[in-house]
């Protein structure tokens, strides 16, 4: 195309856009000229002026149509049309504010929800991780073959074996998380306990991250302990504890009793294994570490695959190593498997199923919202047939009519999209809480409204406009002129194909709503069963916090007993804990004080002991959960005793050793017998003594996703050996204190803080509110998630109820005359109900059947999120079908009553 022609075309278009009136006037003038010439010609051929004019008119045809067709050649007409269409659409929407409001809100909810969840999915699964070669980074975890859903970290033996034998790994590193105590400093800085990470020195380099200041650990020197002990601190710690001091590097700090030099500060956005890690300490693995047996699997192991190695290849490689380990040390490694996971999956994998479920749900919701709007448009289309037929007769093309009808849905979707942005903004904020404050998911906290979400919202709005408007517009635009115009009254203007379409839409809505209802129902059931568990503790009016001393200060490894390290415990940590316990009991306002070695409920880490039932003559040990408690623990948290008694002052170190068991343990080990008086021995090394069971307590659920309670044994912290063989040496030096108090908990807390700091200023109270946090931790996330899904499902139900109401009401309106005639001929109420019911029952039933099938497929997605409920739970399916069917039928009641109220005399007379 030449430039000259292009310019000419542009000028033409601009003129037709901006100088429309002038062009129109010129067009009229041009046609008038033609008519004039035609008349002149007729006059010249001998007709009178009057006759010539009439003949010319006849020959010329309707000048309006010629003008309209000529105008249509202007390529910018569509803008004028659009403006007109939009204005008209606005008028139509304003005329039915109820519909407009419902449609707009439902579209806004659906569009916004979709945009938000897509945004979160994008942030979690598509955006690049801030690590070098992130696509080759993996997390390696272990699991027991008989419980593959529960994965563990790696033991030192496993880590070393992978490090030495794996052929597919380029680099490997381990980390170990735990609280680190920063001691009080001479310059008045208070002691502070913060989460820290011990890391193999090469870990940072493997991730390809750089420090903000200073250096990373040196893989050789920092690993051997050859250099002075170093520590790398987080940006936040640098800012908050050290005030962002510029001379921070090289400063000495005391951490867990050892003096360390600060060698580096990490940038603020570096996060791995928790976003609140305050410091990183080099892990020193002695050369013979792997040969020593170690029981715990506490290492989180990350590795980088060699270039070109797939996950499957790495998995096969590590499977082989696992098989080798099982042969070499069957007692520790038999039945253990390895799982290689891409880092992204390991960090965010747990959010994948919920996010995809949410995404699928909001997508279904959007579909329902669209079908609803489409249904109303279809219905309106049939009502507006005469108006449209008139416009067609006046020369509007079908395209023009379709565009006009589309304008309304475009307006609706645009408004829905704009409101949807607001919804998306709120939903994104909610999503980050739905998924909890994610311990290891850095990015999700940073997702927000960005350009991509705007783009997605816009795209969704456009799609919505077409999804909801195009089919009805096409259907309406296609109507048969003659029949529409000839119809005497709108009441008799039945439009069977429109009705069939709406029935289909209703069936689709019911099906989609049922899918959502079943999914939400299953998840709620699972959630309720977990939430409805008997906790058997009364935590109201109880203040809880943790106090602890590091194991290094009281335990020294002296050898091994079997596979377990054997520790000498000296001095006994119970002395330090005793002092705190005594002081707390003297605090004013406390009613009762007690302690337990680990949070007793919904625990992530569950210490265990092997119990040998001596009086049974059984040789082998049963692994059960094991807690150390102070006297009166159960009475303080008000855990009821089935029989027997709580630990009390009688149970001193010198008295006969005793134990309390939970109901589950009593039932498991001594079914049908009196548990009290039975003697057990904990396999914690040679110094343990036999303990007599003195009490049976109700079950406190130890894990968050557990319904069936597991056996638990409790012993007094005072009746403990001076040597311990096992994996839980830390439990002797820590207590979660529970303080039942009267009055203000803040006052009690501050006096407790003061009391504890008087005993030892370097060891403050930490984790205030431990018990509450454990009680609500997983609950809040899953509650919000279940709430979100339930809200979607209920919205879907409501929308489909509106849809059904619309169809029924429409069917009644359409048939008012027919109903009147039937009534006049003596039809009973029953017949009328059947007449209306036939219209709606079929789509409802079809929808229910389709929905059940859909739910069976959809729940595959949530199978892994269900606890204690199977995904095919018949009760849920039946219940939800029943619920939806009732709502659907309820939606038919009002229109059916209207049908029954039809008075034949009035209707027929008015025709």
């Amino acid at each position, binding site marked *: 195309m*030449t430039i*000259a*022609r*292009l310019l*000419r*075309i542009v000028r*033409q*278009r601009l003129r*037709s856009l901006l100088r429309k009136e002038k062009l129109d006037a*010129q*067009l009229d*003038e*041009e*046609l008038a*000229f*033609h008519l*004039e*010439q*035609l008349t002149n010609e007729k006059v010249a051929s001998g007709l009178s002026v009057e006759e010539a004019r009439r003949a010319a008119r006849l*020959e*010329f*045809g309707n000048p309006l*149509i*010629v*003008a309209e*067709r*000529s*105008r*249509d*050649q*202007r*390529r910018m007409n569509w803008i004028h049309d659009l403006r007109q269409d939009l204005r008209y659409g606005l008028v139509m929407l304003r005329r039915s504010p109820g519909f407009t409001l419902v449609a707009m809100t439902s579209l806004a909810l659906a569009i916004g929800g979709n945009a938000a969840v897509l945004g979160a999915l994008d942030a979690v699964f598509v955006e690049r991780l801030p690590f070098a070669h992130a696509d080759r980074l993996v997390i390696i975890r272990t699991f027991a073959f008989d419980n593959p859903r529960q994965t563990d970290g790696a033991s030192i033996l496993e880590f070393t074996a992978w490090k030495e034998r794996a052929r597919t790994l380029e680099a490997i590193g381990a980390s170990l998380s735990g609280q680190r105590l920063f001691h009080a400093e001479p310059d008045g800085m208070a002691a502070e306990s913060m989460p820290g990470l011990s890391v193999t020195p090469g870990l940072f380099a493997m991730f390809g991250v750089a420090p903000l200041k200073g250096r990373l650990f040196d893989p050789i020197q920092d690993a051997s302990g050859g250099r002075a002990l170093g520590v790398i601190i987080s940006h936040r710690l640098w800012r908050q504890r050290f005030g962002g001091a510029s001379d921070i590097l090289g400063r000495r700090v005391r951490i867990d009793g050892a003096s360390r030099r600060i060698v580096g500060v990490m940038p603020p956005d570096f996060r791995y294994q928790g976003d609140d890690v305050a410091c990183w300490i080099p892990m020193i693995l002695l050369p013979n570490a792997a040969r020593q047996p170690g029981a715990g699997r506490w290492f989180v192991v990350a590795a980088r695959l060699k270039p070109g190695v797939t996950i499957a290849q790495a998995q096969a490689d590590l499977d082989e190593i696992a098989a080798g380990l099982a042969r070499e040390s069957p007692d520790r490694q038999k039945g253990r498997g390895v799982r290689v996971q891409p880092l992204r999956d390991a960090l965010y994998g747990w959010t994948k199923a919920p996010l995809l479920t949410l995404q699928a749900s909001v997508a279904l919701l959007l579909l329902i919202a669209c079908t609803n709007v489409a249904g109303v448009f279809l219905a309106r289309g049939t009502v507006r047939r005469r108006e449209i037929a008139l416009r067609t007769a006046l020369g509007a093309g079908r395209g023009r009519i379709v565009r006009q009808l589309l304008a309304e849905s475009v307006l609706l979707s645009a408004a829905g999209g704009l409101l949807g942005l607001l919804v998306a903004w709120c939903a994104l904020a909610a999503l980050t809480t739905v998924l909890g404050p994610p311990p290891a998911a850095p990015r999700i906290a940073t997702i927000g409204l960005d350009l991509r979400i705007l783009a997605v919202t816009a795209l969704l709005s456009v799609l919505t406009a077409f999804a909801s408007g195009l089919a009805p517009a096409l259907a309406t635009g296609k109507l048969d002129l003659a029949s529409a115009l000839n119809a005497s009254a709108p009441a008799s203007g039945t439009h069977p194909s429109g009705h069939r379409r709406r029935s289909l839409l209703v069936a689709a809505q019911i099906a989609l709503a049922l899918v959502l209802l079943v999914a939400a129902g299953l998840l709620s059931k699972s959630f309720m069963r977990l939430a409805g568990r008997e906790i058997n503790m009364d935590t109201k009016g109880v203040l809880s916090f943790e106090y602890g001393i590091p194991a290094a200060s009281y335990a020294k490894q002296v050898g091994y007993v079997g596979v377990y390290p054997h520790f000498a415990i000296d001095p006994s940590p119970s002395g330090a804990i005793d002092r705190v316990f005594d002081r707390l009991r003297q605090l004013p306002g406390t009613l009762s004080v007690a302690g337990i070695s680990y949070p007793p409920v919904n625990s992530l880490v569950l210490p265990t002991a092997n119990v040998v039932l001596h009086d049974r003559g059984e040789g082998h040990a049963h692994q059960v959960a094991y807690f150390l408690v102070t006297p009166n623990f159960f009475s303080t948290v008000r855990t009821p005793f089935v029989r027997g008694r709580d630990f009390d002052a009688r149970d001193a170190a010198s008295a006969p050793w005793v134990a309390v068991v939970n109901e589950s343990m009593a039932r498991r080990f001594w079914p049908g017998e009196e548990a009290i008086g039975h003697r057990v021995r904990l396999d914690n090394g040679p110094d343990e003594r036999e303990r007599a069971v003195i009490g049976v307590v109700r079950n406190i659920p130890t894990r968050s996703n557990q319904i069936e309670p597991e056996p638990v044994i409790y012993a007094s912290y005072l009746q403990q050996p001076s040597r311990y063989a096992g994996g839980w040496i830390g439990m002797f030096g820590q207590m979660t204190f529970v303080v039942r108090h009267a009055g203000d908990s803040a006052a009690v807390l501050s006096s407790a803080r003061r009391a504890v700091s008087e005993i030892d200023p370097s060891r403050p109270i930490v984790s205030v509110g431990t018990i509450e946090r454990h009680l609500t931790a997983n609950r809040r996330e899953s509650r919000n998630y279940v709430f979100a899904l339930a809200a979607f499902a209920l919205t879907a139900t409501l929308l489909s109820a509106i849809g059904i109401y619309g169809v029924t009401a429409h069917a009644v309106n359409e048939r008012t005359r027919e109903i009147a005639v039937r009534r006049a001929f003596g039809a009973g109420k029953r017949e009328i109900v059947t007449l209306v019911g036939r219209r709606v029952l079929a789509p409802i039933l079809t929808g229910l059947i389709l929905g059940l099938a859909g739910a069976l497929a959809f729940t595959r997605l949530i199978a892994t999120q269900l606890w204690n409920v199977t995904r095919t739970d018949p009760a849920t399916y039946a219940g939800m079908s029943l619920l939806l069917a009732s709502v659907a039928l309820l939606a038919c009641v009002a229109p059916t009553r209207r049908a029954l109220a039809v008075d034949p005399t009035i209707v027929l007379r008015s025709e």
Partner: protein
Amino acid sequence: MPKPSDLLQGTLDLLILKTLAREPLHGWGIAKRIEQLSGDELSVGQGSLYPALHRLEHQGWITASWKNTDLGRNAKFYGLTREGRQQLERELESWNRLSSAVGLLLKRA
């Protein structure tokens, strides 16, 4: 009035362009000229003439200006642009190809 044979789609454009190749004309003049030159065999209805003219104008093949006729009446005159002339060449060529092909087919079939 005998109903003129329907013009093949696109043929009207060709006729208009060809008519305007000699001199600028107004719509009435174009219609008359086509009738004349075809020996009254072809008649162009106003219903298709004016839309065609406006289309060609919007495509940049012809350009319009208001001038007085011989009788002093103000009218809209259309003239070929340079690109319009090239377009005419192209359309003529394809018309010739088409008509000879159709002729050939009719002769042989």
